[in-house]
């Protein structure tokens, strides 16, 4: 396999760098300041280990100051507001959110928070999770989930991506829920966290199908892009216009209409 050798090297590099980061006086901020992924304790699943690997990849690849250990929070707990980035993964029926949880999530997402939903069904996307999530989202916001178009900035926020894959790749679309002008909720049905899951000594815990390690890399890239989108919104749309804007300011050229989709808070 022509790709095997580079990925073996990469794993070794990852392991040594990760160990170095863990033991060499980390520069991680206090919990409230550094980015920390908080997974929602809904439906009994515990994604702590997968998200740790996700956070470590983000630290390795980007300049984002991210805390290494994600934390679990219950949506009805006010501590949810300490974490603007939430993750909700599962493959079982999430059950019914409490009214307090619905209010908290609505407040959270309406004021700048982001929720990434991950369907972690093993062989395929879990239908009960999917139905439960859609049902509960309807209680939080009236608008339905919608397909995120491939031209959206989330597919360019760091890496150039063609499609959203995870441990599986059977769902071709990323879905999202707009709050104001940006997607406050992003939903992948391809078990994104499953592609990140690691064994205690560095190996990956789950096989990625059907694309193997190449697909796993694409999953990591999607993971980076999702977090980058939560932090930068439409920043990469700006870049298509930056040079034109700079030229405009030097002279009297009238800028063309702003073609980037607006991404603003409500």
């Amino acid at each position, binding site marked *: 396999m022509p790709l095997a050798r580079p990925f073996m090297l*990469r794993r070794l*590099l990852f392991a040594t*760098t990760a160990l170095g980061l863990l033991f060499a006086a980390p*520069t991680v*901020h*206090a919990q*409230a*300041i550094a*980015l920390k992924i908080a997974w929602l304790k809904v439906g009994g699943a515990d994604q702590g280990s997968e998200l740790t690997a996700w956070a470590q990849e983000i*630290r*390795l*690849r*980007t*300049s*984002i*100051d991210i805390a290494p250990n994600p934390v679990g929070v219950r949506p009805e707990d*006010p*501590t*949810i*507001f*300490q974490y*603007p980035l939430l993750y909700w993964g599962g493959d079982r029926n999430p059950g019914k959110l409490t009214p307090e949880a619905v*209010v*908290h999530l609505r*407040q959270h997402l309406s*004021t*700048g*928070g982001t929720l990434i939903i991950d369907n972690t069904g093993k062989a395929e996307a879990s239908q009960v999770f999917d139905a439960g999530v859609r049902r509960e989202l309807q209680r939080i916001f009236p608008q339905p989930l919608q397909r995120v178009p491939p031209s959206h900035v989330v597919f*360019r*926020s*760091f*890496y*150039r991506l063609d499609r959203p894959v995870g441990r599986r790749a059977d769902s071709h679309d990323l879905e999202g829920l707009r709050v104001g002008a940006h997607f406050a909720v992003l939903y992948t049905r391809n078990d994104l966290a499953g592609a990140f899951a690691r064994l205690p000594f560095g190996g990956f815990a789950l096989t990625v199908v059907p694309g193997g390690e190449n697909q796993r890399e694409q999953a990591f*890239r999607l993971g980076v892009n999702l977090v*980058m989108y*939560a*932090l*930068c*919104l439409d*920043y*990469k749309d*700006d*870049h298509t216009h*930056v*040079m034109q*804007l*700079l030229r405009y*300011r*030097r*002279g*009297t050229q009238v800028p063309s209409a702003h073609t980037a989709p607006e*991404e*603003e*808070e409500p």
Partner: protein
Amino acid sequence: MIAWAGLFAVADPTGRLEWALRWSWAPRLAVIVLALGILGLAWLNLRQLSVPRRRYTLLGLRALLLVSLLLVLLQPTWVSQSPRTVARRVAVVVDRSLSMARGANGERRWERARVAAKQLTTGHSVSLFTLADDLQPVTGMEALARTNPDGAATDFLAALAELGERRRLTDLAAVVLISDGLDTGRLRARNPAVESPLDEESNALVEHLGVPIHSVFVGDPKPARDLAVSAIRASSFAFTRTFMPVAVDVEISGYAERSDSLALVLSDNGKPVVTRQVPLAGPGRRTIDLEFQPLHVGPHVLEASIVPLPDELTETNNRTWAGLRVVRDRVRVLHLAGHPSWDSRFLRTHLRGNPAVDLVSFYVMVGQGSGAYVSADDTTLIPFPTREIFEESLSSFDLLIFQDFPFGPFQIDQYLPQLRNYVTGGGAFLVLGGRQALSGGGYYGTGLADWLPLRLQPLTGDDVGYLDGPLPLRLTPAGETHPVARLAGDPEANREAWGRNAFQGRNTALLPGETGLVLVTDAAGHPLVAVGEAGSGRSAVVATDSLWTWAFPATAAETTRDRSRTEYHRLLDQLMAWLLRDPEVDALRVDAPGDPVPFGTPVRLQVTAVGAAGEPLAGVTVQVAVEPMAQVPGPAVPRQPWPEPTDVRGAVTLQISDLTPGPHRLVVEALIGGRVEQATAPLVVLPPSGEASLIQPSDALLRSLAKASGGQVWQARAPAEGVPMGLRDGLDFADGVYTDLWSRPEVLLWLVALMGLEWALRRRWGLA
């Protein structure tokens, strides 16, 4: 009367009879009815006479008397219109404006104008006048010799109009202007290009005058040596940080043989902003196109000046001024973030949510060592455009934000001169903290630190430049009255607002700067929010990367969340407004006239004082001073308290008189909230006229007047040879001579005789 009318008609066949009292048909009818009524009554009265001859005699007498009275009432007048001969004269008008005192080779134009006037008047009967801003009659050559050419203006049109009013047009045969052709009045104002033909109104005046307007042009034997900046042509309205064209009209004469050049300097509020070398050789009149970028909102004074030469005619015309009012269309913000973070995310959301903000962001998206995992081919990363930003585009931004942005990795030290020029030259610079900011970001000992309101210290021991942990906030005394720190209007509520908020970490190794103001500290007095002046610019530091926790507070209480979010946006808005010198955040404001003020006109300005919550402050005494701007001599108005304090609207109107021509800076100070607040505004007073700036004689206008009126233009050398100075007999139309026919004594005698005869016959024939 009828007889006399007949006599007049015989003696004066061209005359005519007019009735002075011109009634309409209704009174005429009433009079006729009345007269017939009177005659009817008379007939009844006379019926008692038995002799018919007597009856008819008395009736005839009464009818005659009645007709005579009616004729007197109608006031018949004889109008005689015999022609007569009127002598017509030539008006000689000598220009006595200031420009006539100039000349070449030590010979004043005025002396040559007097010689020409003497030639014209000798042996001729003329009316002599002098011309400046008005027309003055002169009794003769002796009086002209005593006149000084010191008029502040030259207004040909006003003089011609006045000439037409002073003398009956029928008396005027021609006008001869003796002048250097330099008009500063309405004619020049309406015809800025002196070569252009007269406009419609000027032509109408010439036509109304109806006589030829000749001219004797008093030019110079050779061009006078002089440099003049005659005008600044630019819009009176501009946007901040947007380049605007400025055209400067320069007139250079007498230096054609020189091959060197001189510096033309354009200054903004006394500060040179553009310099252009102008070659001395070349066309005498030329326009220099410049480009200028105003930096601040408000009134500006533009000055264009050219370096004087020692042998030029006058230096008074080497500079000129124009007013400019600058507004902000959009706030252009350059946001450089050291890494994506919640702090940068919520700041970006805040800025993008403001429709008046034009935002350009750059994020550093990969960290050190990330290159092993990130290929540029797979990402949308672009090289950080350091050169484009700091060398080419920086000056076009209103506000520069460094958000947790490190000093080292992007070779900022190479661009420190540009950054210093930007900040100290009027820019706005906001530093938001974090581990890569300030001392922790490698800024200690760099020039950048000199423009910040805080002093950076070197890191010692385990200090990494940042300390995590919740920090209660305290307003300093300066912060209590500063507009940036105004989270609530009421001072107590403001203290409470800061007290209930917190930061979640702070930059260390910071001390208050010498000129900056620390507005907010933690409980231990470490500076957290500070602002300061940096040359003409302003800078501010918020020494934390946790400000976003105000925008996304860690509480579920909706009212607390809303209040915290409001305070987040308010603090950022006020920081921006103060950094950008938005007048709305100043405690003391001056509304000055944006346009230049005519010389001698008092300047009226309104000063407004507002408190910490924006409320008007009554009873505030302001100190007022007027300083001349650089390079322009003139007495300053010394600092003194204005006699009236501010009124209930917080306003007081200043009226300042006797300002010398040129640009000035008004400085107003007042003690507000325990601190001396200052506001300044530029003023420009125009010179008395443009006479000083017009140097080279030009016969263009004189030729235009001559062409429009059928006149001619002669050179001053031998004017009398060509100008038709002889008297001309009038082709006259004498006015009518009115002779009253009804008010003569003979008419009175006639009436008395009629009444006496009627009375005598009536008594004789036995009537009462």
